[in-house]
């Protein structure tokens, strides 16, 4: 019986630039119930160009880990319905995107919420839930 070498190999990581945007449907869901499934579904995702997805071997609905020195999240990949040239991915502004934002402001009090650099890779892990983000804060409180 041969050894499945593939399962020991790490999925390739790609560097990606991310900018955040507002989505009226996500804002509506937040107004109604920020702990609801709709808000989570509309927030825990990354929108990419078809080109970038092909280059990185990603399909719509895939789960990806997006990580940098500030934190790490698992979100769903969505293909942009627009004619995007690629090179930049998009996340709705939310507690998920905020995990990736640096607090280094040069003392000016204004982080780069819309200018994120991160590594992206295909994973099988569950999508990061709002509850798991809350759990992080609760643990901090216990320390």
């Amino acid at each position: 019986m041969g050894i499945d070498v593939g399962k020991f190999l790490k999925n390739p990581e790609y560097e990606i630039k991310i900018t955040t945007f507002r989505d009226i449907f996500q804002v509506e869901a937040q107004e109604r119930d920020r702990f609801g499934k709709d808000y989570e579904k509309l927030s825990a995702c990354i929108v990419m160009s078809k080109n970038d997805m092909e280059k990185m071997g990603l399909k719509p609905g895939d789960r990806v880990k997006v990580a940098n020195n500030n934190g790490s999240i698992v979100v769903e990949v969505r293909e942009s319905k627009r004619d995007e040239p690629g090179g930049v991915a998009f996340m709705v502004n939310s507690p998920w995107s905020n995990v990736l934002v640096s607090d280094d402001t040069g003392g000016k009090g204004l982080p780069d919420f819309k200018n994120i650099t991160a590594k992206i890779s295909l994973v099988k892990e569950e999508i990061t839930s709002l509850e798991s983000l809350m759990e992080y804060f609760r643990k901090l409180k216990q320390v």
Partner: protein
Amino acid sequence: MSTCPGCALLCDDIEVVVESGRIKETRNACRRGAARIKGCINRLAPTIDQKPSDIESAIKKAAGILKDSKSPMLFGFSNSTCEAQVKGIQLAKKLGAMIDDTSSFCQGLLIEKILQKKFRTCTLEDVRNKADVLVYWGSDAQDSQPRHLSRFSYFPRGESRQRGYEEDRIAIAIDVRESNTAKICKGHFYRIQPKGDREFILALIDALSGKVPAYEPKKILELAAILKKAEFGVIFVGIGLTYSIKEDFDILVSLADKLPNFQIMPMVGHYNMRGFNENLFKETGFVNRVRFHDTAVHDDKYSIIEALREKSIDALLVAGSDPLSSLTRSLIRHLASIPVICIDPCVTMTSKIAAVTIPCAVSGVESGGTAVRMDGKKIGLSKIIESDYLTDEELLVRLMGAL
């Protein structure tokens, strides 16, 4: 007709159908506004240390926390009426506290310059009646202020613009992303790279000065030609532009100087963020990031971001905001180590870790008052339905009393 507290457009043409004291339906409101008026499903309840309590005990406990604090901060107020904001400023003064609001990491930079009269600006009625060239820069109004284009800027007929968008108006979008607003600006969408706004502005200034710009000369010269011909142009400055040029914001003043027929308008999300900026400016000469001592002192270190980063506050009162949701995760570490008092109509991420939660009425739905629209016009808010909840203004007054 009622006023919508969904965003800083404060649309005052909303019809609300109320049946048996409950909101059944809204008419004319956008998706965002309708959701705000209909309300959240998780109303906040009074708690102390996350255990059920009553309003009086919660207020008493909150007063105790603020009294014991050596370095408290009051934060939020962008979803509060002007009347509540004034009380919040009075409370900060009484406590010798820091006070800051969401504009500190949003449009504060721009609104400060507008209040200091560094830019020409106008009202949204001026836009509707006169504007012929509309520039949405780093702003997706369609998703953030969804009735902006239909009520005021692109689609309506105005006094001097009887042919509306079909002939009389040009809408331009400058953005990193082809937003829903950019899709409407067909043929006039200028895509830039993240943080590319400065380079774009410099090229545009060159083109407006009769020089050939170094960056995308054909596109920039074409845009400069449209802007030069404008009779009454408006640049709607979105958060995308503000964030991108935050290190060199005066560059926008330089561009505005080259465009004498243009007005600058901030695109504001929270319904009364500008109200807070104007109220604090009137009291102190600053729009945010203030500490009251003998006098009001303004410093970047009094911003919520720097105060959390430097761990310089030992108690935080949050009114109508959810910093746990809207701040970077690394900043929130300090929040977990200090007592937080949360005043809000709804359960939020912040309320779930707060030492004290105090529920309030939804302003503009369960209580009236005044708010300031994104263009600086004061608008009355309606009380649409009765409720037993105290307003945030009443709660702040009681809190001051308990001190």
